[in-house]
């Protein structure tokens, strides 16, 4: 297993796209921190990059990589290796290398310019988002045989998590405006890892605006150690469940 992971990581890190992604994140975060006179404001600009770019790149790259290494996977399957091991190693390789490029690209500038609780939170959620969306992407890849279809699916999924889900929430909020939805919103936010990460980061950042009644409920939940632990647990569930489903699909897949 270690050998496969090593091979996958070495293969990905040599990939020009990943180097470009790392460089892009690095330039972006350095310029954001240097342009804004207030580093907290820099974090805020970085927030959108992390919440939109990281899932998009993780998903699309992981999917394309999965399709491109179809022959490599076939070769591995012909060896005396368990399919579970092969799948987990591929996932681990992808997740580790994309997390590494996120850490180099965004993590190091954050630690340099804003080594506060907010910065650490942003770094943690960014790393988790990379892993989660790799898991979601390989699930999408394993369930679709056609490459174009698979990539299309992944882009739709990204659109859903980044945009449509929020629109849906807004729609539901207005449909059920007569009901007290504040507490339900805490549960709804768990349904989208991007929303959950955003709320976790914002609660460290924009406290005054979020202090309304909804904010108070969010704060009572997400502000406590229990809440933070629970939300990180939820994020972990978000990577474990798609990975587990994809592994089961792969085990019984006719290559």
């Amino acid at each position, binding site marked *: 297993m270690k050998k496969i992971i090593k091979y996958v990581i070495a293969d990905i890190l040599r990939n020009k796209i990943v180097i470009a992604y790392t460089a892009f994140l690095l330039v972006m975060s350095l310029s954001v921190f240097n342009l804004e006179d207030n580093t907290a404001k820099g974090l805020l600009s970085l927030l959108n990059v992390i919440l939109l770019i990281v899932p998009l790149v993780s998903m699309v790259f992981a999917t394309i990589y999965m399709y491109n290494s179809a022959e490599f996977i076939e070769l591995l399957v012909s060896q005396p290796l368990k399919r579970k091991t092969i799948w987990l190693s591929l996932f681990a390789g992808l997740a580790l290398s994309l997390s590494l490029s996120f850490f180099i690209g965004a993590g190091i500038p954050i630690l340099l310019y804003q080594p506060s609780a907010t910065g650490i939170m942003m770094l943690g959620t960014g790393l988790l988002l990379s892993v989660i969306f790799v898991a979601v992407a390989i699930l999408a890849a394993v369930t679709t045989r056609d490459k174009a279809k698979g990539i299309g699916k992944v882009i739709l999924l990204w659109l859903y998590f980044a945009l449509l889900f929020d629109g849906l929430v*807004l729609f539901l909020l207005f449909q059920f405006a007569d009901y007290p939805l*504040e507490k339900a919103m805490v549960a709804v936010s768990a349904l989208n890892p991007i929303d959950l990460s955003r709320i976790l980061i914002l609660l460290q950042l924009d406290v*005054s*605006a979020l202090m309304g009644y909804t904010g108070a409920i*969010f704060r009572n939940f997400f502000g406590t150690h229990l809440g933070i632990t629970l939300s990180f647990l939820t994020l972990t569930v978000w990577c474990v469940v798609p990975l587990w489903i994809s592994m089961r699909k792969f085990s019984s897949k006719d290559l």
Partner: protein
Amino acid sequence: MNKIFLLYFLLSLTIPCCIFAETIKVGNGQAITSIQKGIDTAAPGDTVLVAAGSYRQGNITINKPLVLQGLNYPALDGEQKFELISIHSPYVTVDGFLIRNSGHSSMTDISGIKIYNTHHVTVINNILEENYFGIYSQQSKHCTIENNRISATSIATELSGNGIHCWKSDSLHISNNHVKGHRDGIYLEFVTHSLVEKNTILNNLRYGLHFMFAHYNSYINNLFRNNGAGVAVMYTRHVIMKQNRFEDNWGDAAYGLLLKEISDGTIEGNHFNGNTIGIFADGSSRIEMEKNTFKSNGWAIRLQANCMDVKVEKNNFIGNSFDVGTNGSLVLNTFKNNYWDKYEGYDLNKDQVGDIPFRPVSVYSMIVEKNPPAMMLFRSFITSLLDKTEKILPSLTPEDLKDDYPLMKPLAL
């Protein structure tokens, strides 16, 4: 002549306190240990000097003009039963006491120091701890309350009194006091022509400074931090508010400054920093807000649609989550020459005034106003998309709420 002089001299030897010595020393280690007795024996205009130490002598009533002075802050303890100092006479000064543990009552407003129906009373340099009401002025005029440190640890608003409470008074001067942990820091009801300046008011349960039906007053250069709401001005006319700092008033119903049914006010040169809502104006008219700085607030200004003739001019809006919030489409107020850090316009003729108007109300703030749980989507991609489309084609936000002459650079305030 000589004889009379001799007579005075002899008299002064026998009863010195009445003629020459205008200072009567009382308290621990003195001939008179009871402070009340000292006051009773004093003549009008004398000074009663209280030695350092701790006193449990119940209520002290002052009914003649004199100076009651403490040496090294003698502690008057009310044993949670008594009102400590009651002043019934004009021209009284109370200076330099540590006054603590007054009684609590829901029938009468027991205070550390209470001024009853009089004038020209001065309360300076005292420390008041754990009293129900701190300093209370009732139907009094021309009183000075200066340099006192008032603190309490209150748990619930209904169980605690106000730091400085003034009722039906006129021409008061309240300055340089520190008030901490009471219900309201300073409360003015039916008080007129008074000046509240340079006070530091922190951590009070309800309001830092509270006006009710108190006209023609001003408060200048005060600091309000971490109170339930910084200042509440209610049902009041002609209040001048200048150079105050409103900081960190956080909470669901927390405001830096709450204006309720007020008119003809001036709000100038104040700093609003890190409040949930900087200014909340409801049913207010003819207010001039000039040269204020709003920084890092949730909402800088919430201007309800029932306000009219509010002028918002030459203010800086920097780093607020929302600049202006409102609850309707009717706009009877004017915004002019403000600096908005969210302004994205241009200035072709270089006159430092933006060429296109700025609309400070974002559609997302309207959504949150109608549907508070939508706060969940704060800073999400979809809300910024909504805001951008609304900027191009306003439909939900009030058409007329705009600054036609936004400044390109922040004002030096």
